[in-house]
Each structure stands twice: as C-alpha cells, then as structure tokens.
C-alpha cells in the first residue's frame, strides 16, 4: 500500500508539475501581450477599429432685410439596409421587425445592394429602433442635412445651391457661394471605435475638435424684391 501510494504521489506530482509549467507559460504569454508588447498591438488594433470622422458644423441662415429667413439647414435621419454578407432571410426578418415600428417602410434600392427603408424618422421612432440596430447590424440610421430655401423659383436661383464636401455644406452658386466663408462653419472632428460590422461602439466616441457653426447673413434686399427681380 505504501509503495502504491508513493507511486501515485510521484505520478500525481509529475502531472502537477506539467500543469504548473503550462500555467506559467500561459501567464508569460498573457504578460507579453498585456505589458511587454502592449504598445505595438494597441497601435495595430487601433488601425483596424479606430476611425476619425467629421461632424457637420451647422450652416448659417440667409435672411432678407426684414429678418425673414430665406435659406436654412435641416437635419433628418433615414433608415438604410446596407449591403453585407447577411443572407436574404435575415434581411427579410429585419424588414419585418422594422415594419412593426414603421409600417410604411419598404425597400428602395439606392446602390447595388443598399436599400433605403424609410426617410425622415421621428426621434421617438429612432429610440424604438435602437435594439434592432444591434440585432441586425445591416440596419443603419444615417443622418442627412438638407438646405432649405423658401419655395419661389426666383429666390432659389438668387440664393443658389450648396454641395456636401468634406462633411460640410459649401455654396457652389448664388449668395451661398458669395458668402460661403461666413455661412460655412468649421467641421468638428471626432474619433470613434467601430465594431466588426462597422457600427460605432457605444461609449467610445471622443471629441477631437469642436465644430464651430457658421454665421447668419443678412441681405440688403427683401423677399418681395428678390421675387420681382429688383436686386
């Protein structure tokens, strides 16, 4: 009995030593990545996941001499289904779930396999949709800023057009172009971590530069004068 117990003790100790060496090796590996080579792997990781982006500064309004607003910007949120590897069944399931919240949602193709499901979603609906965005990573709510002008053809021509460039609106014709340096603000810069589906990871948004809104421009003509062509 003594012999067999001793033998068991020896063999058990040998196995325990193997386990101990394995544990030490695993701990060394853990130490290597978390302390010794940390910087290198952090930088490599950030290249994949951390993205810088700009956010819209808010373009100034254009007013006539009577302080009547002729042009202004409005922000909307649209719901998209963006292409990925997901199969058709999952897409249909996603649409089905969306339709429980937005009954009039429907597929409108915008690119090869990207679909616009609904334009101009109300804030309360955005909150309702939030759990679905995690469940179906293909679903995205994207912001869109539109430049609005009072609805007269003469005024629209006089005010001119804007285009989006580098995340901000820039005037390309008319008053919008002439006063662009005043109207256009400076875009904000942020940094955010993306997950593997390219969605923002909650709690990682970091402001790098604050956006500065554009200033309003007051014209020395009135709306009626623009309409009648007296400029």
């Amino acid at each position, binding site marked *: 009995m003594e012999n067999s117990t001793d033998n068991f003790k020896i063999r058990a100790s040998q196995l325990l030593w193997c386990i101990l060496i394995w544990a030490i090796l695993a701990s060394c590996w853990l130490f290597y990545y*978390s302390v010794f080579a940390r910087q290198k792997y952090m930088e490599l990781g950030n290249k994949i996941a951390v993205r810088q982006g700009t956010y819209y500064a808010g373009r100034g309004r254009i007013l006539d001499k009577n302080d009547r607003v002729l042009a202004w910007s409005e922000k909307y949120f649209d719901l998209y289904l963006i292409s990925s590897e997901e199969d058709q069944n999952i897409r249909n399931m996603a649409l089905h779930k969306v339709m429980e919240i937005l009954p009039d949602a429907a597929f409108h193709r915008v690119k090869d396999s990207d679909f616009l499901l609904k334009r101009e979603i109300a804030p309360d609906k955005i909150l309702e949709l939030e759990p679905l965005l995690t469940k179906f990573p293909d679903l995205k709510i994207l912001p869109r800023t539109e430049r609005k002008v009072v609805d007269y053809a003469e005024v629209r021509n006089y005010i001119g057009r804007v285009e989006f460039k580098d995340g901000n609106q820039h005037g390309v014709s008319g008053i919008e172009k002439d006063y662009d340096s005043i109207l256009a603000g400076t875009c904000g810069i942020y940094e955010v971590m993306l997950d593997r589906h390219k969605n923002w990871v909650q709690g990682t948004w970091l402001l790098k530069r604050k956006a500065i809104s554009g200033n309003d421009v007051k014209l020395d003509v009135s709306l009626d004068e623009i309409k009648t062509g007296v400029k």
Partner: protein
Amino acid sequence: MKILDKYFTAFPGESPVFPLAMLIQGLLFMLGLWGCLAIYNATMYAVSPFYFVGRQLLWLVLGMGLMMLCARIPFSIYRDNVELLTVLFYISLLAVLIFGVRINGMKGWFMVGNIFIQPSELAKGFFILALCHFGGKFRPGMRRFGGMALITLLWVLPIALQPDFGTVLVYIAGFVIVYWLMNGSFWHLLLVPATLFSIAGWIINFNPYLLNRILGYLCPELDPLGFGWHIRQFQFTLARGGLWGMKWGKALWANSYLPLAHSDSVFASLAESLGFIGTFPLIVVMGILVFAVFKLSLKAETEFRKVFVLSIGLLFAAQALIHISVNVTLIPATGITLPVLSYGGSSLLSTLISFGIMLSAAGRHETISSSKVNYNQE
C-alpha cells in the same frame, strides 16, 4: 508541509480546522460568482445585459445544490452502476447527432423548451469514472493502454462528428491523465501525440481550411483580416487590457471583435477589463483549487478513488488551461469554455456534478474492509 497536512482533512468532523472539502466547495462557488461577473462584463452592451448573467446565476445555485447532493451519495452507488451510466451517456452522445440542434456550426445540443443541454459536457465526469473503472480491468501495459485508448476513441468519435474538436481535446487530456495515474507507460503515451498529429495531417490534406487556420495561428500577420483574424483579435484584446485593465465593464474590444466574449473568450474579455493584475490571480486561485484536490486525493482510501479524485481536478485544470492558452494565443483557436466561469449551464453543471462525485469518492462514508484494496479490486 506537515503542519499544513494536519489541517487538510477530507470532510468536516474529521478535523476542527480548515476542512479540505469545504475549501474546494468554497473556491468553486467563488469562481462561479467570479464567472457571473465576467459574463455580465462581457454582455453589458447587449440588448438584455442581465439575460446571460441571470441564467448563469440560476445554474450556479442549482449546480452547487447538485454538487452537495452528489457528494452525499455513497461512492459505491456510482461505482456499482458505472456500466449503466456509461451506456446512458454514450447513447446521449449518439442521440444528439440525430435529434440535436446545430448551434455555431456544431450539432451538440438537445433543445428542451428554451433550455439547451450539451451531453458532451455532462458526460465528462462519467467518462473519467468509466475510464478508471474499465482501465482497472485491463492488465497493466500495452493491453491497458490499448483498452483505454479504444474506450476514449469510441467516446470521442460522436463528439468529433458534431464537430467539437475543443471538447475532443479535453477528453483526450482526460485519457492521458487517468492512464498516467494508473501507472501508465510514458512510451505508450507518446503514441497519443503521434496519432493525433498523423490524423491532423491526414485531415489537413483534405481540408485546406484547417491548414489556413494553422497558418493563421503561426503567422497571423500574413492574413490579418482572414485566417489570422481571431488570433489578432485575442492579441489586441490583451494589449488593450494592459497591466491594470481598461476598467470594469469596458471590455469593448472583446464585446466588439471576439467570438462569444461571455463563453469561449471569457478569459480575454476579463483580461481587457482587469488587465494582467486582475486576471493572473484567477490562474492562481485555480492552481490552489487543483492543489487542494491533490491533497484530497491523498486522503482517499483506495487507489481507484485516488486516481478518480485527482483526475477530476486535473481535467478541470487541463480544460481551464486549454481555454486560457487559446485566449492568450499560446495554441491555435478552438472553441472551449473556461470551466465554472464561462456562460453555459451544461458546462457549469457538469463541472460541479463531477466535483460532487469526486468529493463522494474522497469521503469515508463507506467502510472499506481491506486497506490493500486497489483500483483493480474495487
């Protein structure tokens, strides 16, 4: 050590101070709670952050109860019914291939209502019991090795067909442990890696995906967005954790990039939140638990029981180290849970039930007539 020995005793009542069985149960419960926190940490950005942790807590309470119950059942009942138990669990392994449901590409779960039961997890402790029992029936030497290897092969075949290679690896580790403790030959054991490498080579020959997986492990920088992806993500997760960790609940990389951060990648997820300083103690606590099981095994009456008791502890250690090694990229990625800590009712219950039977084997509830009983006779 003599002073420590005086205080290490199998069951309460045998020594007034520091009963060993209580220490093991306490450590398991503590690890279970630690696991619940780790699961919450890994799922707190999910749609229902309390879903996984709530279920795990229920499994933990149930598992602790079952462990105590299994420890109270005399070991002779397990031993006398080992053939029946072996057949029942083996049938469940076969049945899951026909009636099971496929999750994450593996057909390894029975679905009962909204509960998933994984028989390959539940069968682990009984596999060790069967191996100890049937191994003792073979004459020592090549015959014993062959017999035990055949039992292991039959047992892991349905698991390999699921396919769940991580669990297969754990079962093979179990075979090596039991065989070695039963006075197995080192030269015979060399056949295990030789056979495994041959089979792996043969499979790789027909399956380039596996070759790429191994290449991805060896040189992740060759294809960081393809086959090196998982290895790279584990490395980035550990790097983010650093020495002190990102903060509790800030396992952002693990949540966003690791597969099953609450289960197969729970160690890396913890490392991101708590850093090296917070995760190294986990390895130490597991080491203390295994050492306690070793001391307990020395208290067992017969060799059969000694081997069984220690094998359960070492199987726990082997599975934990496989999980940790995968998470620190010491070995190629394979899906395996960290026992007691990872999310999963089957895994948790299986470990706690195995420890319950182990405590029963170490206890002295039965009178053993001869002090010279060995595993062949028992």
